[in-house]
């Protein structure tokens, strides 16, 4: 029995040949028998024919035999596929529309899924990533400032934590930054990470050649200067030369020795490090400073310790760290520590939310596409009603017919899916080019750099998703039409069609109406969502950031070679040279560009008021600027004066404050001349006087209100890292060459970097919001187009079915207008029902957008009513075309036909 089955399954052709031979043998015997019995009255060919007649239908027999043998399923499947392809060839228009619709739906879903997979699902590229935790310090709320639970570590505090803990196998401290790396004479500004010897073991990453940092190099501050290169940097700068070990390079001017090269693909936690610098080679003073919080802590749990079990232990350890280093400035304030699964921190909650919203949106588009294709199938099934009825009547099983129709829809879906691969590829390429560095960092989005849009690709998971989605799609849009088309109502369909068409059409028409309504409803939900996002983007575009970004060039110098004391003189010369460039009108320096986030913050002390209670000190953002910066950025002066060149070291200290600072801390009073101290820049012990008030500038993000800011004069408190701002008369890019020349003349070999028009920085600050809004809008437009197409299909089919009725109406005196009104009214009633359902759905679901919206309520009535108008317009257009066709019906022709 098993042998029999195997033979049938493995050698089907052999089996078929055997059957043929057996039947031939049978027929020849029967023919011989007949010829013999007829004693010569029968020719041998007549005998053969008689034998054939006696045998019955040859083909059916063979088919049945094969069906019995168990080949039936594959056989009929092959038949069905062939039949489906034949019938698609006969209806190229229908097929093209359906395939295109499905390709867009399936492809877009796969692209977005790839993004979700890379950003949210794919395991982190580290060994046993579920055992990795990120530990941060926590700061209680203070004054206006909210509590923080994501503060990085200082090295001394980390040492206390590491000594006290027993739940982790391995702990590491790292920090990512940018540095000038010089190999020979070639200097390059690139990403570096300070990392200790436990960094790679904790993550479970090996070096490809060479070694990791040793325990010796980790032992104490002032360790030897060694680096490990990224594979990319090694390829780029050393042509993958394996004798690179032991060679020298400089990082920000300091000499280092290369000891290893990382495996390809790993570029540190930041995802963009080219050089790992040994942790202990950093400036000793920074390392020994317990209040210099700049390092991230990653820890690997011991086997058997769950993250949940570790969290309370980490909180306890936070108390230990706080006891070792209590806040000396604010007594009684208790800092702590908090642990999170590393995987939970992989992307910013905003990115997670927007990706899931996009996935949901694109899923809705596919549903609409399915409804549309199902509709096309229903229309097609209606025209094939007779064919199907005939087949049912001659004994085709309903299950068999359903299977055949389902095969058709799955074949169509597979064609669509195949075309969808191209759409997905295009989409993924587009997504991967989103510059994660620019967009995510300028918006201060959190998350692990190693998990970025650059990691999005069409991998096997994505293809599996596409394949599953394709089959599912085929079944979803095929099932309803298949079941409906084969519903046995033989008599009606076999009788004269024209008599019966209206009766039999009724049920089909209701399903089609229902599908159109569902399409409209889903489209409304999507339109509402994208409308809100667009409105939010518009509001964001309308935000005045407090400065004029047009025609301003920004750039940075890396001046590690210039001593701090000679910096003002250097910058003086530079400003002078830049101001002399034709086309440059103003030049100013500031330590931290607007819309960048992460500017310094500190406390403001009123010298003429009693000391406030600990924890209630006013907090301010603090900025170092040159006198020309306000004019360069066109930040308006509201009161008093801005800095002059005379506000320098050795004279009375002064500060300029922002409008918000004045309103917050001197409500209803004149702040000019007030004595204050500022907790940074050497302004803590001295008294400075407020000399001016300027307009508010958004230093954080576009969508957060400016905090109170205080400006210090650069000449009174020099800083090493300053950004240059040059206002130009024309295109700021036009002076880049001249700026480079002047800089090179002043400081040969010092790289000028981050050279970008300010306008671009502003655009970057909105890039992610724009990306989400535009993608969602694209989906919504696709949804609207599909829904309109679906409505058009339903109405125009209805018109073709009602030709006769319309003919009678016209014959009885109905005007063209009333016919058009009748048909368009039908479309509008679909729109009203679908629109109402959609609005309910929209109100129920747009809440998920709340965290993505700026200054727009999820139930914004303006947006929702605009959507309704748009929808009705689309539906009127969609039903107008068939309505005009209906109006053109010639009654004579319609009634005769």
């Amino acid at each position, binding site marked *: *029995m098993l042998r*029999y*089955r195997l033979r049938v399954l493995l050698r089907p052709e052999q089996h078929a040949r*055997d*059957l043929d*031979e*057996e*039947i031939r*043998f*049978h027929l*020849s*015997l*029967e023919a011989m028998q007949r010829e013999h019995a007829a004693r010569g009255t029968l020719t041998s060919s007549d005998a053969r024919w*008689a034998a054939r*007649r*006696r*045998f*019955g*239908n*040859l083909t*059916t*027999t*063979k088919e*049945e*035999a*094969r*069906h*019995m*043998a*168990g080949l039936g399923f594959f056989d009929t499947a092959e038949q069905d596929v062939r039949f489906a392809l034949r019938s698609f060839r006969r209806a190229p228009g229908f097929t093209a529309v359906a395939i295109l619709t499905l390709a867009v739906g399936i492809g877009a879903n796969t692209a977005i899924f790839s993004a979700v997979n890379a950003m949210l699902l794919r395991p982190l590229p580290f060994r046993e990533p579920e055992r990795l935790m990120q530990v941060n310090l926590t700061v209680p709320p203070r004054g206006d400032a909210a509590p923080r639970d994501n503060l990085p570590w200082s090295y001394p505090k980390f040492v206390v934590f590491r000594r006290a803990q027993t739940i982790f196998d391995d702990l590491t401290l790292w920090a990512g930054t940018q540095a000038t790396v010089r190999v020979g004479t070639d200097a390059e500004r690139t990403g570096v990470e300070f990392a200790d010897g436990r960094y790679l073991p904790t993550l479970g990453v090996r070096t490809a050649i060479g070694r990791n940092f040793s325990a010796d190099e980790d032992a104490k501050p002032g360790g030897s200067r060694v680096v490990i290169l990224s594979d990319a940097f090694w390829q780029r700068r050393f042509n993958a030369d394996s004798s690179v070990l032991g060679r020298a390079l400089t990082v920000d001017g300091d000499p280092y020795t290369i000891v290893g090269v990382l495996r390809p693909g790993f570029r540190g936690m930041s995802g963009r490090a080219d050089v790992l610098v040994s942790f202990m080679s950093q400036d000793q003073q920074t390392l020994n400073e317990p209040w210099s919080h700049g390092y991230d802590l990653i820890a690997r749990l011991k086997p058997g310790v769950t993250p949940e079990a570790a969290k309370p232990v980490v909180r306890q350890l936070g108390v230990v760290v706080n006891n070792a280093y209590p806040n000396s400035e604010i007594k009684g304030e208790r800092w702590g520590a908090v642990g999170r699964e590393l995987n939970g921190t992989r992307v910013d909650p905003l990115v997670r939310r927007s990706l899931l919203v996009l996935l949901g949106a694109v899923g809705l588009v596919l549903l609409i596409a399915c409804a549309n294709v199902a509709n096309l199938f229903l229309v097609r099934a209606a025209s094939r009603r007779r064919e199907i009825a005939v087949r049912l009547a001659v004994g085709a099983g309903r299950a068999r017919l359903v299977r055949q129709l389902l095969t058709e829809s799955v074949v169509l879906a597979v064609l669509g899916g195949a075309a969808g691969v191209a759409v997905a590829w295009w989409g993924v390429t587009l997504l991967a080019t989103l510059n994660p560095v620019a967009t995510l960092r300028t918006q201060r989005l959190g998350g692990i750099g190693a998990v970025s849009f650059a990691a999005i690709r069409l991998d096997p998971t994505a293809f599996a998703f596409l394949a599953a989605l394709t089959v599912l799609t085929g079944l979803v849009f095929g099932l309803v039409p298949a079941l409906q088309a084969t519903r046995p109502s033989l008599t009606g369909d076999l009788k004269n069609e024209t008599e019966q068409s209206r009766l039999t059409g009724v049920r089909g028409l209701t399903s089609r109406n229902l599908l159109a309504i569902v399409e409209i409803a889903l489209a409304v939900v999507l339109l509402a969502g994208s409308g809100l996002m667009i409105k939010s983007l518009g509001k964001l575009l309308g935000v005045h950031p407090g400065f004029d970004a047009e025609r301003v060039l920004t750039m940075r110098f890396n001046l590690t070679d210039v001593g701090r004391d000679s910096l003002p003189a250097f910058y003086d010369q530079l400003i002078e040279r830049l101001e002399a460039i034709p086309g440059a009108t103003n030049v100013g320096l500031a330590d931290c560009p607007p819309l960048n986030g992460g500017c310094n913050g500190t406390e403001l002390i009123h010298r003429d008021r009693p000391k406030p209670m600990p924890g209630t000190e006013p907090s301010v953002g603090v900025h170092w600027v040159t006198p020309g910066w306000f004019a360069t950025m066109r930040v308006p002066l509201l009161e008093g004066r801005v800095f002059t060149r005379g506000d320098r070291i050795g004279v009375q200290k002064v500060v300029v404050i922002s409008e918000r600072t004045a309103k917050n801390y001197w409500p209803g009073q004149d702040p000019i001349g007030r004595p204050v101290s500022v907790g940074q820049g050497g302004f803590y012990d001295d008294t400075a006087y407020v000399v001016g008030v300027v307009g508010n500038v958004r230093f954080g993000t576009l969508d957060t209100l400016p905090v109170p800011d205080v400006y210090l004069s650069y000449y009174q408190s020099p800083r090493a890292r300053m950004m240059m701002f040059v206002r130009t008369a024309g295109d700021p890019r036009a002076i880049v060459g001249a700026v480079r020349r002047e800089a090179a003349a002043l400081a040969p070999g010092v790289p000028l970097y981050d050279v970008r028009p300010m306008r671009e920085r502003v655009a970057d600050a909105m890039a992610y919001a724009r990306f989400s809004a535009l993608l969602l809008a694209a989906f919504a437009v696709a949804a609207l187009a599909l829904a309109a197409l679906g409505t058009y299909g339903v109405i125009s089919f209805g018109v073709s079915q009602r030709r006769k009725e319309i003919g009678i109406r016209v014959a009885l005196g109905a005007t063209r207008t009333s016919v058009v009104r009748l048909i368009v009214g039908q479309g509008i009633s679909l729109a009203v029902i679908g629109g109402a359902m959609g609005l309910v759905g929209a109100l129920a679901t747009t809440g998920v957008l709340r965290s993505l919206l700026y200054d727009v309520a999820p139930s914004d009535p303006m947006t929702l009513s605009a959507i309704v108008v748009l929808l009705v317009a689309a539906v009127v257009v969609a039903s107008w075309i068939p309505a005009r066709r209906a109006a053109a019906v010639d009654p004579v022709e319609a009634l005769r036909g």
Partner: protein
Amino acid sequence: MAKASGPSKSELLKGTLDMLILQTLSGQPLHGYAIAQQIELLSDAVLTVEQGSLYPALERLQKRGWVTSKWGASPTGRRARYYTLTATGRRQLGEEISDFDRVLVAINRVMRRV
């Protein structure tokens, strides 16, 4: 179709074809044509098999493991497929006969009462 459908000939009762095939094979291995001939012969030509339907039935019986087949030489010298009853097939035949008998008895009883 040349199905002999005179008044003296009966169409097979549904489901009895399998039983008849098994029965004809209970004596000796036979090829397809011979099975058809046997059934017609033994029933005095009352039962006619639509010959075509024989082969799907034989596939079915093989699939269930009640008969096996082997190619051999026929008396005329041509290659023919011979079907043999298996042990399970023999058991199945016993069951089908007793089922059939029960049905016959029941029908007879009904007919006598009327």
